[in-house]
């Protein structure tokens, strides 16, 4: 009987849910639509929420004019390097912090938490000087080089990554480790061949967040890559088309679309594991 009473209420709730989902997705739809509208329709005083003559003019403007490919590749390179290194370093740290007992463990755990709270953006000034110094010694990681971006993003995704993986590593039963030890597996071997695959959902979540973090960065790319245009990343590529008084909206929307697609694909591919990863991390 309770169900019979609830049913009309649930239908209304479902209708509301679908409408809200539509509203949330609308900006993305508008981005895609504006990217494929023919030039005359984009900058129109009477914008229409559809188009009958999709065109790839805006995309070809973006892809041909600005060296977009190079910027895209730079962003991808930085993001992938950050993902690979974050996975490796955060996994090692998470193992040490959860499976080994040593003095100062608790202090280190609190420090990873505190490190997450440091406003990265406030550190732009000292990091700028630091990168200039590093560039003097190791040019590939100095100002104007992609290496500097990798270092900075790595430092900022690591604390969250370690904190997140901790829960997954801790969830692997201790008995497994003991059994492996009885079978003669070394600690190294247990870590890489047994533990590593077992915490896969956590690793997926870590890689997505590290990827997004590096891919989204605007501030550090803007600050560190000053004079070497060929080392700029995607956000600057979009900036080229955005001038407050004379914006090429078609090109801005097309390049925004191109920038969003890799993340969206990544997200959709791993969403199940990401969601469980987030849940696992926040429960930890």
């Amino acid at each position, binding site marked *: 009987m309770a169900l019979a009473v609830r049913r009309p209420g649930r239908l209304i709730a479902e209708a509301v849910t679908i409408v*809200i989902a539509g509203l949330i997705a609308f900006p993305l739809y508008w981005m895609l639509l504006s990217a494929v509208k023919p030039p005359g329709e*984009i900058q129109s005083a009477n914008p229409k929420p559809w188009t009958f003559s999709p065109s790839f003019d805006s995309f070809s403007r973006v892809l041909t004019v600005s060296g977009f490919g190079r910027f895209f590749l730079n962003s991808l390179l930085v993001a992938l390097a950050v993902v690979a290194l974050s996975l490796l370093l955060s996994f090692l740290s998470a193992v040490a912090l959860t499976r080994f*007992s040593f003095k100062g463990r608790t202090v280190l755990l609190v420090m990873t*938490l505190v490190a997450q709270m440091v406003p990265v953006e*406030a550190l732009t*000034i000292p990091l700028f000087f630091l990168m200039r110094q590093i560039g003097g010694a190791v040019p590939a990681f100095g100002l104007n080089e992609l290496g500097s971006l990798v270092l900075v993003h790595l430092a900022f995704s690591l604390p969250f990554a370690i904190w997140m993986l901790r829960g997954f590593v801790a969830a692997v039963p201790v008995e497994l480790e003991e059994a492996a030890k009885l079978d003669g597996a070394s600690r190294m071997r247990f870590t890489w061949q047994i533990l590593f695959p077992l915490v896969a959902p956590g690793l997926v979540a870590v890689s997505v967040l590290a990827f997004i973090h590096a891919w*989204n960065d*605007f501030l550090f790319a803007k600050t560190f890559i000053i004079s070497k245009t060929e080392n700029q990343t995607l956000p600057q590529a979009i900036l080229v088309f955005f001038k407050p008084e004379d914006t090429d*909206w078609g090109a801005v929307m097309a390049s925004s679309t191109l920038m969003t697609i890799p993340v969206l694909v990544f997200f959709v591919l791993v969403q199940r594991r990401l969601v469980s990863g987030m849940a696992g991390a926040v429960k930890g």
Partner: protein
Amino acid sequence: MVVVQEAPSVTAPARKPRRKGDGRAAALYLAPAGILLAAMLAYPIYQLVLISFYDYGQPQAAGNAPLVFLGFANYADLLSQAQFWTVLAKTVGFAGACVVGSLIVGTGLAVLASRVRSLPRTLLFLAALGAWSTPAIAASYVWLFLFDTDFGLVNEVLTGLGLPFEHHSWTFGTLGAFGLVAAEVIWCSFPFVLVTMYAGIKGVPDEVLEAASLDGASVWRTSWSIVLPMVRPLLMIATVQSIIWDFKVFTQIYVMTNGGGVAGRNLVLNVYAYQQAFAGQEYGLGSAIGVVMTLLLLSITGLYVRSQRRSAAWL
């Protein structure tokens, strides 16, 4: 399609007897991350504090002029500026609105999602994942375009409804500009709250809810007295993460208000520090702003860590 899987349940790891060699192995495992974090996080924080005590301009940065130690002069200078207090107030107001907004939207939708069947729920989660995965810069441009003075859909629709929004500039006035950026920030950040809170609500055992309804508890009563206390730790995490993210918003404000608006009317601390340092070449003053911001966030962290230690065995 989107299913919150059973998350690994993490209880406080049982204290294992200390084994021989653990300390050495731990040092080895922690070294790579530790060195990187020391160099890229700890050292810059130290430098930030140091620079904030000096008169540090372009000549000093280039090494052409001697450093002059000022003590707290940069801070005194900063605190005596009317603009600093305005920016601080705007930052707190803006970040506060974003936090409250994303918590309400995220939690509200999580409750809704837990009450509908899987198709509408999947659509909602997909839309949220889409918003979540849109890079901040792309999202900023799309929202700007939707609210564009001349070519924006929003003005067109509002004008069509007979409202006086023809050629209305959303980014000119302080309230409009902050409102627009806040809406965009909430759009990008509520999905995290949604996912977190949905996982929390799903984690409440059915038997508990059934028992409550058998006892005649209303939906409101159940939500307040049973579900809310059970999801409180998660709500806490979502709140603190939102505070941290929203205080640090840079890209959206910078892009959407074109560097802080006309005469810096729409600045937040972040953008203000950046402008002082890199446009005004006042690195000392910029660093002082950075220190103030760090202290602000760290004090929130302190509260968080304390309450977490009290509420759950999380270490």
